[in-house]
């Protein structure tokens, strides 16, 4: 080296990279920015949560209507398949050939009689049992698998799964509690409210790739405060307002949450003066876009976050599940699956499709969210050592019957720190 200050550089180059991950001393009212950026944290989340003792949303039964119908999905970063079997049950399998690990399904949906890996054509039944290995006995008397190769020990792994009212859930863990115990009564009641066991009708999907950490989306759905300010459309047309009757209930030790409100229509109150983005003068030409037809929920909107990555809810007459697939520390995929009930009349189906304009990648009240999450990610990435504050509504984790609160985010980080050992 010829540089005059090479001594300084040498010291820097040989110093070990040591990043101490210490949670701010204030506890769960602070969120260190590195939880949104650190690859080691991300990998630990994949192992502890998605591959651990959690139950994960895989899909709706109506997506696989016939024997052999399959749908591909992901639990965290692990590809899985749900498939309808001969008995009418739905299995959840790893989407990974036992041989060399190739995805055995590389299309989102389809219908098969059995699964054949495209690479070396190993063949499996709908339960993941290995049925055939081409050239198992070799060719022309040479090659082949060893005599003691046991197909029974080399199938595709079938996960523990349940069907709750037409929704399919799976866990990689044999030790996880039952799905019912995992959800707890409050979250289970929300799922049952949305899926009362009536046959469902699939209406379609929306998928978006959002350049932010997956937890930012989870927090967004645990944050009624932002919705009362950012989403002018919501506020103005009374779909979600700070002065509506509401409930924010952390459950499952803070992992899950129930967040609901009531559609009260357009109105002007004391609180609207604080909502700088309230627009009394704003009118829609087609008011039906924000006017639900009365149905089972009786004006109650919102829903439950089922940790780690699913939400069930209703907005106007639009019914959908939301599913988050973490892709990297700074990127997640968000999938909405829109559905109705098989017994919906034509008019109701039309309204469900119409009210889907409110949410999703082009939704009147969710375009803002994906735009903002990107901005938050850019901000925190530049300052991993800094931290966010979540003290709105106090410093506790008690259920709240009002909206201007961050209690669900606090409760979540209370849970998160313990689960992650941070």
């Amino acid at each position, binding site marked *: 080296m010829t540089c005059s200050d090479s001594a300084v550089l040498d010291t820097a180059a040989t110093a070990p990279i040591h990043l101490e991950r210490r949670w701010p001393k204030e506890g769960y009212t602070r969120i260190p920015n590195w939880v949104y950026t650190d690859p080691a944290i991300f990998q630990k989340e994949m192992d502890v949560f998605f591959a651990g003792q959690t139950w994960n949303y895989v899909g709706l039964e109506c997506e696989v209507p016939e024997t052999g119908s399959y749908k591909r999905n992901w639990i965290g970063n692990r590809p899985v398949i749900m498939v309808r079997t001969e008995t009418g049950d739905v299995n959840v399998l790893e989407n990974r050939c036992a041989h060399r690990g190739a995805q055995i399904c590389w299309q989102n949906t389809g219908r098969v009689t059995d699964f054949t890996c495209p690479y070396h054509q190993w063949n499996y039944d709908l339960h993941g049992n290995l049925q055939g290995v081409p050239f198992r006995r070799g060719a022309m008397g040479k090659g082949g698998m060893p005599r003691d190769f046991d197909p029974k020990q080399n199938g595709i792994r079938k996960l523990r799964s349940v069907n709750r009212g037409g929704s399919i859930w799976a866990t990689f863990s044999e030790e996880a509690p039952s799905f019912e115990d995992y959800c707890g009564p409050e979250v289970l009641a929300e799922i049952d409210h949305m899926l009362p066991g009536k046959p469902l009708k699939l209406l*379609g999907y929306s*998928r978006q790739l959002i350049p932010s950490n997956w937890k930012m989306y989870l927090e967004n759905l645990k944050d009624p405060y932002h919705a009362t300010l950012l989403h002018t459309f919501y506020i103005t047309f009374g779909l979600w307002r700070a002065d509506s009757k509401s409930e924010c209930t952390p459950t499952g030790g803070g992992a899950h949450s129930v967040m609901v409100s009531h559609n009260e229509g357009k109105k002007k109150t004391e609180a609207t003066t604080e909502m700088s983005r309230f627009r009394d003068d704003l009118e829609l030409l087609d008011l039906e876009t924000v006017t639900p037809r009365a149905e089972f929920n009786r004006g109650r909107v919102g829903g439950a976050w089922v940790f780690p990555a699913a939400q069930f809810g209703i907005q106007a007459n639009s019914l959908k599940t939301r599913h988050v697939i973490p892709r990297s520390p700074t990127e997640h995929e968000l999938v909405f699956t829109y559905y109705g009930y098989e017994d919906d009349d034509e008019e109701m189906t039309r309204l469900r499709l119409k009210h889907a304009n409110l949410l999703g990648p082009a939704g009147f009240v969710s375009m*803002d969210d994906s735009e903002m999450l*990107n901005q938050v990610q850019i901000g925190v990435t530049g300052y991993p050592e800094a931290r966010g504050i979540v003290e709105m509504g106090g410093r506790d984790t008690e259920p709240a019957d009002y909206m201007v609160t961050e209690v669900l985010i606090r409760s979540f980080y209370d849970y998160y720190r313990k689960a992650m050992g941070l």
Partner: protein
Amino acid sequence: MTLTDLSDAPALRAQLRDFYDDYAFCLDEGRLEEWPDFFTEDCHYRVLSRENHDAGLPLGLIYCMNKNMVRDRVTALRETTMFEPRSLRHFISGVRVMELQGDHIVSQANFAVMESLSDREPSLNMVGRYLDVLRVTPDGLAISRRDCVYDNYRVRTSLIVPI
């Protein structure tokens, strides 16, 4: 503008080409208030994924069931939506007449939309095709039905400006 005789294929195609170019110009220049003028009162305008389209699933990310909903989209974008400023360019090619039905033209075209944000390289935001039914009116062509079927598996962040 009067419309060329529908049986004059090259002239019709030229006129269609102009119509698609005018539409792209309107959106690229941010003249959103003029965007509803391209539609009939009873129009259907939908942006949907190829995934939904191919599976026969009706869900659209943007689903306007009449011209008032098209106008409301513009109001929402102008008045209520927070989004990062961007410029968009629509590249429309492969304009084809598929069928003539009375005063309706069934046509289709490819689109590609490039997005440029203030601090990043331009990127391909969306690519796909328009599946259209255009109506021949005394004032020229108008969109009676437009499905914007995009090939992207996922929308990049958000879909702000219509396709």
